[in-house]
């Protein structure tokens, strides 16, 4: 037994199962570890043992047919839908469970889960901006109320982020008056305001008109280039190929392919992945 990421703040010293033989340095860089995660809704098994490590600066695109469990995976990671089995670690800290002295695993408290959620940004297909708050307030709400940041400081941060996503002039506007692409960029800024360790995107451009996807993909690409660790569920094969350093293909809740884009796109091992890709590139 060895401990994961000894350098990071661990809340308990319980043994953590991990792949043997991984170099300590590499272990340190693992930001998100997903280990044999299963999820079932009643009899419906949606995730059937998903494992991967996301290292600092990784941009991993997750592709797969509709219904293959991609959204469920993201929701399991930040405990919106807790996994039925398996473990998630964020910087080596168990996410959503606790191991007591006797080695028994129990669900973690909501306040601990909420603390870890602050470090995982999530961007939704439907943007999910709060319609009764201005753009600025959408971004400052969580930093002020959850991170207890001073209002002026949060405002400054929000303005920086809005400038970054090219929407500073919309800061006092309400979401309903923005285009889909603008709303999604605000949603990205909102997630970034919590200074997350990982950003997860769930088909961030799928509900946008084609002419608006570019502005959102550009922001995402820029984030990746700045070194943000990202997990990107997408149908944008161009983005997956060019902006990510890893591509994972999921089929029926299992990882069928996981490798660099060239390998997954040009030389997939799995027949299903090949079929999926040929359908995606009509």
């Amino acid at each position: 037994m060895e401990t994961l990421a000894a350098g990071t703040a661990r809340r308990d010293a319980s043994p953590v199962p991990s792949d043997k033989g991984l170099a300590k340095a590499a272990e340190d860089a693992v930001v998100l570890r997903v280990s044999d995660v299963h999820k079932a809704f009643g009899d419906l098994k949606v995730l059937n043992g998903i494992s991967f490590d996301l290292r600092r600066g990784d941009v991993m695109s997750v592709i797969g047919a509709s219904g293959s469990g991609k959204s469920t995976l993201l929701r399991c990671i930040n405990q919106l839908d807790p996994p039925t089995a398996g473990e998630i670690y964020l910087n080596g800290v168990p996410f959503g469970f606790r191991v007591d002295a006797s080695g028994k695993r129990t669900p973690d408290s909501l306040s601990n889960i909420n603390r870890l959620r602050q470090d995982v940004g999530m961007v939704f297909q439907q943007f999910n901006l709060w319609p009764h708050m201005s753009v600025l307030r959408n971004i400052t709400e969580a930093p002020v109320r959850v991170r207890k940041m001073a209002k002026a400081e949060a405002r400054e941060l929000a303005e920086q982020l809005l400038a970054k996503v090219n929407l500073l002039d919309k800061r006092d506007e309400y979401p309903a008056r923005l285009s889909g692409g603008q709303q999604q960029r605000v949603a990205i800024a909102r997630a970034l305001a919590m200074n997350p360790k990982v950003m997860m995107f769930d088909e961030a451009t799928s509900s946008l008109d084609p002419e608006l996807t570019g502005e959102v993909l550009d922001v995402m690409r820029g984030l990746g280039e700045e070194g943000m660790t990202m997990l990107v569920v997408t149908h944008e094969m161009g983005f997956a190929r060019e902006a990510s350093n890893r591509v994972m293909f999921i089929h029926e809740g299992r990882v069928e392919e996981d490798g660099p884009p060239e390998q997954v796109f040009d030389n997939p091992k799995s027949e299903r992945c090949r079929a999926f890709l040929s359908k995606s590139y009509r």
Partner: protein
Amino acid sequence: MDVWRSIILKNLNLFAEGLWVTTQICVIAFCVACALGLGACLVRLYVRPLRLPATIYIEFCRNTPIYVQLLWVNYVWPDLFGWPQSFFAAGWMALALQSSGYLAETFRAGIEGVDRGHLQAAHSLGMSPFLTFRSIILPQALLNMAPSIMNQFLVLVKSSTLVSVIAVPDLMYQAMRLTAIWFQPIEILSFTAFLYILIVFCLSHAFKLYADRLRGRYGLAMA
């Protein structure tokens, strides 16, 4: 015209006094109804063990006639609880009771109608359930339900005429009293009806204007 001059104009002060009592009783009753309704709705939605009592309370309030509630609060409560000791308090309490049942259901619809995605966004940022409720759910529920909530106030204004039967000196009570004194029901009651129409009509338009402006401010479709 004689009646108009000799009775209505001469007794305008009584009408005004009645109107003032009506205003007080409606405002107090509505505030209490909002508090009770929100409380009942929150208990029903979020406090599992008390769900049944809350549901019974809500159904009781909605399904008993206001007249029965009025007499019940006025004649039975003082013996049961030692309160209320005045007709006025009994009046607003009974009105509040009935409205709270309807408001509880209105609030519930508003809360359940909030887009689940908005809640997930809040949770994904680490917001606690309480913070999510306060910052995201309640404001949206109130905004979306504003027309129904305001409509409930108008219903309450109209129901408030019934408090005259337990001798609360509201507008309706004054009208009845003048009628009994002067035996001129046509003029007196018509004028009273006119006053109520005026109040309810103006309020309903003011409310609608306000609700639309509110939604317009947020760029939302008109309700």
